[in-house]
């Protein structure tokens, strides 16, 4: 039991948190701008390297440096939207998708140009785990990731339901033309979508790098599970995307648990295939996801 919790459940919840934070941005961009943002993973990586750069100058806990990562990702997202996505807004959205493919590459190559392509560690050394109730050994990082994500979830829910901007965002996601007719400032909504999506991507990037290490393909490798999570939660339902992220993370990690007998149910090398299979099943049977999102 404790083995399950220490080595499977908590890591599952941690990776689930990372997916959740990334998937929220993807779902919001899907919901408001109506396209699949293929550069979101690399936006996460950008956040990670922003933190890495700040860490070189300020040797403190990397989590305190997340605002620097956010500054970089928010700037990058707004810049890219203004100069690359916005010019294509009048066309069928598939062109923006193609463009985001290219932007992913631009982000990745810029990162490799500046920082090189080897793995880098955000925090040197091994930190001792917390021991709870004498049996559960939990890594501090896992706790930080899970708690942070839970807090963000609450804040996000509050933002979307109780603030003007949040409600405006939901309105634009529901019906952009009606939103315009009602006088809503859709340009502002678009800006905030990028700001929130990019900021959360930076947090996700931080935890992902702390969980493994920082390398240029960090975000790109997580893109597919995050898309799966966004679809699972229902497109345009940010809270659903959070739930989706946790479910996908759990499914991935727990799939390699030895539920039956001694062997892992699914070989760990095929972990990423789990998210893909879930996504495909959703697309066949229930493309609107758990929480009845839009079908695009």
């Amino acid at each position: 039991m404790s083995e399950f919790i220490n080595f499977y459940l908590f890591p599952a919840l941690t990776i689930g948190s990372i997916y959740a934070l990334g998937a929220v941005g993807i779902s919001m961009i899907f919901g408001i701008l109506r396209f699949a943002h293929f550069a979101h993973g690399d936006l996460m990586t950008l956040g990670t390297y922003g933190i890495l750069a700040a860490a070189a100058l300020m040797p403190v806990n990397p989590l305190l440096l997340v605002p620097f990562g956010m500054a970089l990702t928010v700037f990058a997202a707004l810049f890219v939207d203004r100069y690359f996505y916005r010019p294509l807004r009048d066309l069928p959205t598939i062109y923006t998708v193609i463009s985001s493919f290219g932007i992913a590459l631009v982000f990745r190559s810029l990162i490799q140009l500046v920082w090189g392509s080897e793995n880098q560690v955000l925090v040197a050394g091994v930190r001792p785990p917390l021991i709870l109730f004498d049996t559960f050994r939990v890594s501090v990082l896992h706790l930080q990731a899970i708690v942070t994500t839970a807090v963000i979830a609450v804040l996000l829910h509050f933002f979307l339901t109780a603030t003007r901007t949040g409600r405006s965002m939901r309105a634009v996601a529901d019906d952009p033309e009606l939103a315009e007719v009602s006088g809503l400032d859709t340009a502002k909504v678009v800006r905030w979508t990028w700001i929130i999506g990019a900021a959360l991507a930076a947090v996700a990037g931080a935890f992902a790098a702390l969980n493994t290490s920082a390398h240029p393909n960090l975000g790109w490798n997580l893109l597919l599970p995050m898309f799966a999570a966004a679809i699972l939660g229902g497109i345009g339902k940010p809270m659903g995307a959070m739930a989706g992220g946790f479910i996908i993370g759990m499914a991935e990690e727990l799939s390699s648990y030895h539920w039956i007998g001694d062997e892992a149910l699914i070989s760990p090398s095929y972990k990423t295939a789990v998210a893909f299979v879930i996504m495909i099943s959703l697309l066949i049977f229930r493309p609107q996801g758990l929480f009845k999102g839009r079908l695009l």
Partner: protein
Amino acid sequence: MTEQLSVTGLTAGYGGPPIIEDISLSVEPGEIAVVLGPNGAGKSTLLKTIFALTSVSAGSIRLGERELTECRTSALVPLGVSAVPQNRNVFPSMTVDENLDVGTYAAPPADQKATRERVLSLFPDLKGKLRQPAGELSGGQRQMVAMGRALMSEPKLVLLDEPTAGLSPAYLERIFDLLLDIRKTGITILMVEQNARQALQIADHGHILVNGRNHVSGTGEELLGDKDVRRLFLGGAAG
């Protein structure tokens, strides 16, 4: 509203051939004006053009001094013009309360609470449904939510596109009564309608469009009494 809305020589479409051509009409402050005509006459297009949702090739729309053809869609509400579209007129995943609230963002009323009270007193049915997602309501209730949202910004002019389309006779009556109530508060109404007879009965002026062009205009009574109009739109029988 103290200003007149005047449409002059308006020609507009959706990028291809024009749907409306050389349309001219004016709406006096405080009146109920109705736009009628057969299907495809361009009635909805006229309303959409006022809201900058089409492409204008000629003509002008003036609200007092303001030239509306130069405005963006989202600029209309702050100018005191609200709209109730025909379909897709609520935000389905948002609650009734949230839908009404959204109406105040672009043009916050001076006393938001009082405005809300007033709107809800116009639509008492909604009082018990404030927390329900608007998409779950019936057509008639959705219509009320949409009208409520339009009124929350304390507009001077409200455009309605077929407010009674697809509604049961009971709701139909109520909508027309509601429009009279709204007019009493000094708001000008410009609406497109299919229920020609009832619309003309409450209208001060009517404008009939055929094939995208002006056909005939007049006061409500004039048009009700006109033989041609009776034959074309009112089924010929004495109204």
